[in-house]
């Protein structure tokens, strides 16, 4: 295989290109810094979510959930003892969201039985509802470990009756899954959400936007320039397969993008204290998925246009639209519903959802499987169309 020779050559060329390096690293760092510092106040004032909680269980696990919600800065939690009164208050729009913890919730969790948490929402406040849903899902994911463990033990015919026994088994199970015996883990949620700072938005937001410039814009132009300069033609006349040539181009673009996105996220962590979550592996998986999808889009652009100038314009347009609609410039969940629906067709939106899940909700690998799945699907579609239409001559 010779694709690495082409990838290494491309990387050497980019390392010599001072303008490209500035656009990859310095410019996004400056924009992240300026945006985050300038618009910080807006985030602190704007994001407040009021929620009413009815705890019909009032036992250890349910009280733990209430405490967990109360510790989250952006939530204003109020309690109501009467379920019907609580429903009325939501109906009267006094509260936008209501969480009902059913009776026997703690016992069900402890005994390994399935149970439900009911969230009633006012549909006009979609963005706040999404945030609350993510928060509760994160907590549910954590306590679901208990259910899984107890069910597993019961499946082997060992009777479990006392709370002490259950806690002992859960502790033992947690010892075995830390570190996880396999990469996928359901034990990924920390007990507290971090603060949603402007950098939670702008670090991944602008990092993804500038990644797109690298992979879609520079990536497509680089390929078309090889075409225009005749170097691609020359490579095809050498004893190297077309798959190796394309593979080399994809590999170099992917490596550039992966390094860029990693550096920019790490920059946010080191300089602005951006929380990276507890699952670094999941972060790398997400970065890889976003980079692959956008690399695929770059290849597709290179195939669909004829000249480097066209690639430049089309890429710029695509990146700007995806960044605006997909949530690079402002949180996706504050966009109106029709824009959120449109955003589902962009790489940026799925990337940002994934970053929110990891950097803010700390849902770990299990929490980003859907986003990664969609990004991989996009990658397959983009590469599939691009490679089938690729012309070497």
């Amino acid at each position, binding site marked *: 295989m010779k694709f690495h020779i082409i990838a290494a050559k491309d990387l050497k060329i980019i390392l010599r290109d001072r303008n490209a390096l500035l656009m990859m690293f310095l410019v996004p760092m400056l924009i992240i810094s300026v945006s985050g510092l300038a618009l910080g106040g807006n985030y602190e004032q704007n994001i407040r979510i009021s929620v009413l909680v009815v705890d019909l269980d009032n036992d250890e696990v349910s009280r733990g959930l209430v405490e967990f919600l109360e510790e989250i800065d952006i939530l204003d939690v109020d309690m109501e003892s009467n379920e019907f009164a609580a429903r009325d208050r939501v109906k009267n729009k006094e509260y936008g969201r209501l969480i009902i913890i059913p009776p026997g919730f703690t016992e069900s969790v402890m005994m390994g039985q399935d149970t439900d948490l009911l969230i009633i929402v006012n549909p006009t406040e979609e963005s706040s509802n999404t945030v609350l849903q993510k928060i509760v899902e994160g907590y549910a994911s954590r306590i679901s470990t208990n259910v899984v463990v107890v069910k597993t033990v019961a499946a082997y015919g060992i009777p479990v009756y006392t709370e002490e026994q259950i806690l002992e088994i859960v502790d033992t199970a947690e010892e075995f899954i830390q570190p996880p015996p396999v990469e996928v883990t359901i034990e990924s949620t920390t007990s507290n959400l971090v603060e949603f700072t402007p950098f939670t938005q702008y670090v991944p937001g602008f990092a993804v936007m500038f990644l797109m410039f690298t992979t879609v814009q520079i990536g497509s132009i680089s390929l078309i320039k090889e075409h225009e*300069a*005749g170097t691609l033609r*020359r490579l095809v006349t050498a004893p190297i397969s077309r798959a190796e040539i394309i593979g080399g181009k994809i590999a170099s673009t992917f490596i550039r993008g992966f390094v860029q996105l990693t550096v920019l996220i790490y920059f946010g962590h080191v300089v602005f204290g951006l929380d990276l979550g507890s699952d670094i592996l999941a972060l790398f998986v997400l970065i890889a998925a976003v980079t692959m999808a956008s690399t695929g889009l770059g290849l597709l652009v290179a195939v669909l246009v004829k000249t480097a100038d066209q690639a430049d314009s089309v890429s710029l347009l695509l990146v700007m639209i995806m960044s605006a609609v997909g949530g690079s410039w402002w949180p996706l969940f504050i966009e109106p519903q029709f824009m959120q629906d449109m955003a589902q067709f962009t790489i940026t939106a799925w990337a940002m959802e994934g970053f929110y899940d990891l950097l803010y909700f700390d849902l770990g690998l299990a929490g980003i499987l859907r986003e990664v799945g969609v990004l991989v699907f996009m990658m397959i579609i983009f590469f599939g169309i691009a490679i089938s239409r690729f012309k070497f001559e």
Partner: protein
Amino acid sequence: MAVAVNSDVIITVENLVKRYNSHTAVDGVSFEINRGEIFGLLGPNGAGKSTIISILCCLLEPTRGRVVIDGSDIRKNANNIKKIIGVVPQEISLYPTLTARENLAFYGKIYGLSGRALNTRVEALLDMVGLTDRADDLLVGYSGGMKRRINIAAALLHEPRILYLDEPTTGVDPQSRRRIYDTIQDLNRQGMTVLLTTHQMEDAEKLCHRIAIMDKGKLIALDTQKGLLELVGKSDLIHVLAPEILPGPVESIKRMPNVQKVSLDEGNMTIQLLRGRESLVGIIDILTSSGTQVESIYIKEPDLETLFLHLTGTMLRG
């Protein structure tokens, strides 16, 4: 001219056809190239030369016909063929922000060279094209001629048996052109077979053992230069340059006894005729008496340009 030509054939092209939708770029071309020969494909832009080169280097599939290179059919053994050919494209197919040495090392690795063998080969080629002292400069700072020399060197890393050169001297200064000629002739002396396409007569005349003349996708003549020139006999060419040439004097010139062909291209008139010097005064008389403002007029001995006009009725450079 270079070494005596071996008789055995290294490239066979039979009834080659290449179509793009309704356009036929190559139309039933057949020829053979002998081992150790410098073979030229001469013709104007769009004659089909580059398409033939693209097919011969396995870049394009022919629509019809057969091509065999050193015993391998291009449809069946493209990979074997790619190992024995070196291709010098018309454009500078190099990376301007890499040095000459890095460019050559990159292509060397693509051809499977590595380590000391790669380094030795790169140094030898830099020496051959006379650019060892500039080897570590970025190509972006090279002159056009220097880039062309590296462009040729990049095709020689794997010591190919056959070298294809597509318009190797386009846009180069006379000094670099001479250097390129020397390089091609040196390689040929070492036994390399060379196929070059060109629309420059000088390339074909100075380098090629045999020349195939192409026009509109067809091969219209194939022979040594001497053999080809015998086709035109003793015709001369008279070139006239004027801002405007009216039909009247053109018709009068056509009726002159020794005139064989007259072609017009805007303000250029080319007259093919026998014993040109004897008719020159008469032609000037016709032009001046008709009020044509002649800017220049000159006479040329028979050459490949004359031949091309003789065969096609148009100028090669047109």
